[in-house]
């Protein structure tokens, strides 16, 4: 098998799959070359991710990366999530073959976008309340 057992496990039983109503942040990323599309939703309480969900169209590794990536950021501080690298998502999958690195990249980009959206909304709320 060319994929790690961890990746296969995430593909078999994806965690956090599905959309979220009234999220605090939404991010999307697309890999135009491989046509993968990942969308990530975040629920944030006191600057931390309390729930992350995803909807992903793509190959098996990209679906697995979405599961592992959303699991990775659950409970994490939003500022750190906004800087999440593809390498961390890849590590959470137990590695990726060279020709599937895009899976971690597209998912980490969607997660960063969702975190930035949540930070912006939070900033707007604070600005609006002053």
């Amino acid at each position, binding site marked *: 098998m060319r*994929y790690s057992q961890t990746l*296969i496990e995430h*593909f*078999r039983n*994806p965690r956090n*799959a*599905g959309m979220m109503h009234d999220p605090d942040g939404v991010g*999307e990323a697309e*890999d135009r*070359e*491989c*046509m*993968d*599309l*990942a*969308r990530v939703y975040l629920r944030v309480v006191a600057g931390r991710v309390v729930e992350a969900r*995803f*909807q*992903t*169209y*793509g*190959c*098996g590794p990209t*679906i697995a990366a*979405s599961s592992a990536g959303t699991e990775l950021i659950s409970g994490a501080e939003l500022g750190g999530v906004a800087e999440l690298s593809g390498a961390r998502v890849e590590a959470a999958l137990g590695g990726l073959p*060279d*020709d*599937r*690195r*895009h899976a971690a990249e597209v998912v980490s980009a969607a997660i960063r976008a969702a975190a930035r959206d949540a930070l912006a909304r939070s900033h707007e709320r604070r600005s609006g309340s002053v």
Partner: protein
Amino acid sequence: MNRRVYLDHNASTPVHPEVLEAMLPYFSERFGNPSSVHGFGREARDGLEGARERVAAFLHAGKEEIVFTSGGTESDNLAIKGVAAARRGGHVITSSIEHHAVLRTCQALEQQGFTVTYLPVDGHGIVDPDDAQRAVQPDTILISVMHANSEVGTVQPIAAIGRIARERGIPFHVDAVQTFGKLPIDLDASGIDLLSFSGHKIYGPKGVAGLYIRKGTRMASVQHGGEHERRRRPGTENVPGIVGLGKAVEVRARDMAAEATRVAGLRDRLWEGLRERVPDVRLNGHPTQRLPGTCSLCFRHVESESIVLGLDLKGVGASAGSACTSGNVEPSYVLVAMGVAVDWAMGAVRCSLGRDTTAEDIDYVIGAVEPLVAKLRSVSAVRA
């Protein structure tokens, strides 16, 4: 433990036990070089020529018209480059859904100054013979159209195209790698001058194939060396492989017709079962003019490789219709040429059945596909 179901027979097939048995002595006991004059060489030559006779008899061709090669790709290269090399230039007609062994060989000829017409296909993947007729030019030197497409299984009207070629005196090459030993081939009625065929698609070994070259076809060598294969393909022959190919052909001549009927029934059982249970699925290729064992499907809004991976985890070997290579996914050029929309083409999966496939296998696969596609759609970002 999962059941294991192999549905990738268009990619390769297991060697038939009778074929393996026929090959074995040629690895150890009858190992000589068939070009050697001594007894060891003669034993090997007897095996080689016996296989040639079997293939020739199967095709109703002359022994001297059969050339053994290392694979279907080599056969296609030899046919196209061999005809081209015997001319100074000219025009080639082929179809837009040929195997890469033909398409890229034609593209290589374009680099050398030849011109090529790539005929379109209709929504079922069929070439219109009238298009071929219209494409003929005064300097057309070759028409090359496959017998059946490996991805969707559509069978081309080669007899009609062959008539056009024959009327104009143009050599006609047919890549029959997917049909040889599966469907009847009438070289004379179809006006075929060159026919590529392969061993490992018909329960023979890998690394052996052949090219039928009608007597009198003007060809030049594309490989140089000794006297093997009447100089048309120099190099010591793969004797065990060729013996295996000969045996495979003999077995196919015996089993082909009955197997085609049985396998076509299972192919239709697969399609009917999936159509009933899985929404948004379509069958690719011609509904009837199709290889008996080929069932190409598109699942809308699901990505090919995720289905193939999910099936693999259930013990099912199928083939993805779109391939992700180095992070770049292209929908199948065959499906694109047939006008299949990208959101369908990205979810193409080919199931190709064979002699060992059973009804229980098919029911197992239907049962595996239904929840898998539902799950993949439930996580998808592109389905409402």
